[in-house]
């Protein structure tokens, strides 16, 4: 069960969606510059779900192993952000960002590094925008590339009785002519989510003013 005090209201969800949308727009334009091809980003949809549920959502959609670029963030609210895509996409993405000029061996050689860099661009755009919009500052750690199943990525602990929550943002990003798609997720604990919710309330009060 999701505790009531961190469940986002309709308006808070709209606000967060809008904020993430801005971040994603930035990320997309950055990615577009890197790839030089059409990048389609879906309007984000947002859910606060349990880690287990998040793992199931991902595995429902992706049958293969996953690759994720993971970055921790600290500040007004803390957690870990993940850019997730199917492992089979990984080399395609590297090829896309390196402009098709490398040999397969070269692509494999730089895969890790290229993925980390791409993930950094996208996640940074998102998180920085969020922090900015909420008038807060966040500091980001160095990105790391992790591989495994949905359960691994979302650190589902079968032994643990209390489950962490995931702010799950479905942002399908698809690149034309390439089978590339991915998701963004933010793992936050309850205090962090409560802080985020409070910041969203402030944001809404600021923007909507008397109309709210």
């Amino acid at each position, binding site marked *: 069960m999701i505790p009531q005090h961190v469940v986002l209201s309709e308006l808070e969800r709209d606000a967060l969606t809008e904020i993430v949308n801005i971040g994603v727009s930035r990320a997309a334009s950055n990615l577009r510059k890197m790839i030089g091809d059409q990048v389609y980003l879906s309007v984000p949809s947002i859910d606060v779900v349990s880690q287990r549920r998040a793992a199931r959502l991902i595995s429902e959609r*992706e049958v293969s192993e996953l690759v994720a670029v993971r970055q921790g963030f600290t500040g007004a609210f803390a957690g870990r952000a993940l850019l997730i895509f*199917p492992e089979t996409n990984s080399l395609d993405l590297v090829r896309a960002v390196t402009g098709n000029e490398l040999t397969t061996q070269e692509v494999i050689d730089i895969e890790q590094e290229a993925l980390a860099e791409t993930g950094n661009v996208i996640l940074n755009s998102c998180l920085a925008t969020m922090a900015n919009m909420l008038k807060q500052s966040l500091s980001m750690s160095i990105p790391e590339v992790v591989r495994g199943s949905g359960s691994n990525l979302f650190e589902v602990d079968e032994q643990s009785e209390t489950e962490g929550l995931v702010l799950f943002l479905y942002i399908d990003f698809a690149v034309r002519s390439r089978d590339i798609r991915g998701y963004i997720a933010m793992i936050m604990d309850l205090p962090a989510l409560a802080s985020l919710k409070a910041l969203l309330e402030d944001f809404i009060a600021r923007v909507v003013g008397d109309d709210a």
Partner: protein
Amino acid sequence: MTTPLTQVDDLRSELAAAGASGTWYWDIPTDTLHVDAKFAELYGIDFEESRSGVPTRTFFRAIHPDDRARIRIAVAGILAGAEVFSKEFRVVAPDGTTMWLHGRGQCDFDDQEQPVRFTGVLVDVTERKRTEERLRIAQSAGGVGTFEYIDGYATATVSEEFCKLLGLYPALVLPTQTINGVTCPGQEPLIPGPRREDMPTTLEGTFEILRSDDHEHRWITRRGEIFREGSGYRLVGVIYDVTHAKQQEAALRDLNDTLESRIEQESAVRRAAEEALRQSQKIEAIGQLTGGIAHDFNNLLMAISSSLELLKKRLPQDDPQIVRLIDNAQQGAHRGAALTQRMLAFARRQDLNPVLVDVADLLRGMMDLIQRTLGPAWHVECDFGDNIPPVLADANQLEMAILNLAVNARDSMPDGGPIRISAEQQQEIAAGDVTDLDAGDYVVLRVIDRGEGMDEKVLSRAMEPFFTTKGVGKGTGLGLSMIHGLARQLGGSFTLTSQPKQGTIASLWLPAANVAAANPEIDAPRNAQNSLECLTILAVDDDPLILLNTAAMLEDLGHRVLEAASPHEALILFEQYPEIDLVMTDQAMPGMTGTQLAARIEVIRPNVPMILATGYGELPEGMRATVVKLGKPFNQSALESAISEAISRFRH
């Protein structure tokens, strides 16, 4: 430098083709909103008054209160750097009508990344909203999910119902891999993958899927249209669940496939029933035939034995040779009569004398007889349960039946062995529990051996008359059939259970008698006193031989006899001779039975003593109680007693 107004004009001309669309120009540094005539019309504001610009809050003022906060957030988003503003919201006109508008705009930034203007187009989408609403309802009510796929992409745009049909978490966009992941192995993909180069020729197809959420097997049909777009294509289609139809189809096919075997099965059941019916009809037919033969044969024996009886009286008694010869002939006739009795028993036409019989007493009383009949190599064990109710049966016939079964048991164990005879009460037998039995309480008598037993084939014929395994000359084959006839005549049943080398259980089921209802005094004490008076007797029989004999016996007893060869003749004679004291008639005659004749005579002159001679077991219905029954064949003394009794019944 161009003024905002000229820019609005330019925009307007550009967007004129767009039809019912209004435009806006939001000047951020001055916080002023410039709109065109159409925007003003849609928002319900005076265009002329707004020509020089209105406060930007005007943008939100007409928006439906429920949508206002959302749009404020979205505008904040675009001003902060979101790529596109694309929102749908309701606007309430001054007259109160609500319409749906779609605002689509973008933001321009200066060199310092500061927003300078937010421009956009406003389109009335009320119609489209209604259409969407109808489409959504059509989808949810009809269980139809839609999808749209543009070739080259790894994702497809889907509807909520689409996700629901496949058991996927609702989303507007799904990877084709996820969609195709629900189809069962060996199926075509529901949506072509991004690397598929050739354009599909049709979207018609049915797919077997494993629904993602509940892992249920379902059938999905896909339909739709293919649009060629440039070098690629676009697929727009629907899916819907056809599992129910598929299941019905499969059930129908299954029904068809198994039709033959089911017919075969049904036929076998019917053949078995027909076989059973034929078997019982056969036994019935043999019974009738046997009864008929026995009846005629009885008459012949009657003629022979009564003639012998009279002959013996008239011949000189001092020649031992003659006496022996006649005795021999009479013995032969008696044995013939015994045989016809057994045949009649099978045909259920024997003359039974049912009285209340205590089965345990009866069995105890005959143990000695049984043991002696069987011989020392066969040990008889008894097992009589407590509280065995009496049965209504002919004790002699019952004894014969048990002896017969005991002899059969012995014959199945040529080297000796134990024979068990048991009797017990079986209460509340339901109809159908035991062959031939109605519901009720019964007493079951069992004779159990551990002998050779019978195989199925022999067992099935064991109760047929004349069927015997004892070899020619050793048995008549009437034993079991007779017992069967006896049991049926008493409202019981006779069953055999046997397996080769395991022995046989012969069970004789007889209804437990209702003691209160039964009349223990079946026979009124007979008045055996000989009447010496000379009577005028009308003798009626269609068989001239019998008639002749009966008349001879009656005359020998000193009576005067009038002979009638048919019931009609009898009636004529009866009217002619009012001095007739007694009528003696055969029962089975063509044209009129003895009973019917008795009734006619009763009409002419009541209270005439009557004797009914019959080889048949039961008293015909409607028979007067005063009529004395005489079983055939009868001898002279039996005839004499019958006459006495008939006369005595009218002398009270």
